[in-house]
């Protein structure tokens, strides 16, 4: 029985080793923060449309429509947004998911050119030139995409561009979950 005690340092060492290995090698990204807003109602906001773009503006009331909505935060100056754009178009056109946008810290003429060049899949876009509403959404950068359920609650948050491989593995399951 006493001799078991001599193995204690080895056990502690192995335990610490596993913990460190997990922290380094599990593919966990420490810069990805859990959102404080998951399962909470979307923040109160009302944003005007982008000047010179026909799409109407966006307010919190437009989210509780009974339909699952993707809220995509984008900017014309954001290169990953450009890369993500065809995937958003696909989610909207092929999967039939309602898509609205928040145009973050952008100039209206730049945003208009961005949408003209890449097509505009958004049914509503709120212009947030000061980035003030972005803070209410707990935004850490662009792009970010939120899955909001029919009652207007945030169910999923995707930080960074949606990669095509993440559509099947992350986005569609989150939308399916929000539809329940």
């Amino acid at each position, binding site marked *: 029985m006493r001799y078991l005690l001599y193995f204690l340092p080895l056990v502690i060492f192995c335990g610490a080793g596993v913990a460190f290995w997990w922290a380094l090698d599990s593919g966990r990204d420490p810069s990805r*923060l*859990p959102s*404080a807003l998951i399962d909470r109602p979307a923040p109160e906001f009302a944003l005007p449309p982008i000047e010179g773009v026909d799409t109407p503006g966006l307010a919190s009331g437009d989210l509780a429509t009974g339909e699952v909505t993707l809220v995509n935060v984008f900017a014309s100056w954001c290169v990953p947004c450009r890369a993500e754009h065809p995937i958003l178009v696909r989610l909207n056109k092929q999967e039939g998911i309602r898509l609205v946008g928040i145009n973050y810290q952008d100039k209206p003429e730049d945003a208009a050119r961005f949408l003209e060049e890449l097509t505009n899949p958004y049914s509503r876009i709120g212009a947030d030139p000061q980035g003030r509403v972005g803070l*209410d*959404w*707990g*935004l*850490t950068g662009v792009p970010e995409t939120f899955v909001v359920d029919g009652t207007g609650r945030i169910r999923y948050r995707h930080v960074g561009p949606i990669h095509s491989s993440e559509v099947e593995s992350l986005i569609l399951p989150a939308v399916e979950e929000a539809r329940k």
Partner: protein
Amino acid sequence: MIRRLLAVGLIAGLVAILPTPPALALMPDEILDDPNLEARARALSRDLRCVVCQNEAIDSSNAEIARQMRLLVRERLVAGDDDGQVMDYLQARYGDYVLMKPPVKPETYLLWYGPAVVLLLGGLGVAFYLLRRPKAAEAAEPLTAAERERLKRLLDKEDA
């Protein structure tokens, strides 16, 4: 002429090697007119983490989001929030991560009390070891008369 050039060069050299104050992330246009509110804003900014910089307060971060957060802190203060309300406002949106000092709650007990527990366990181990160690005095018991007799006999036999 040459002397003047030398003097200018010397001054320029001195200025170049003088220690410069640390660069401020805070921009002049962010600073509030009311010095009391500004002082509170600076104090709060030192306790709020920039959400994209891992371990830097918004007070010292040059990230755009940190600037937005500094402006928000000032906006809330001007609107009449007390310090706690400002912290709660940001915590509600960004979670505990936004606080430079994590709150004490069940999920963070290990973080806050873990070191004390390890110290306590180590202390107990040391105390246990010291108390159980056989005392040196106990080992030095004098020989009995019979033992002395036997020892003497053995030694004598060796001499013979």
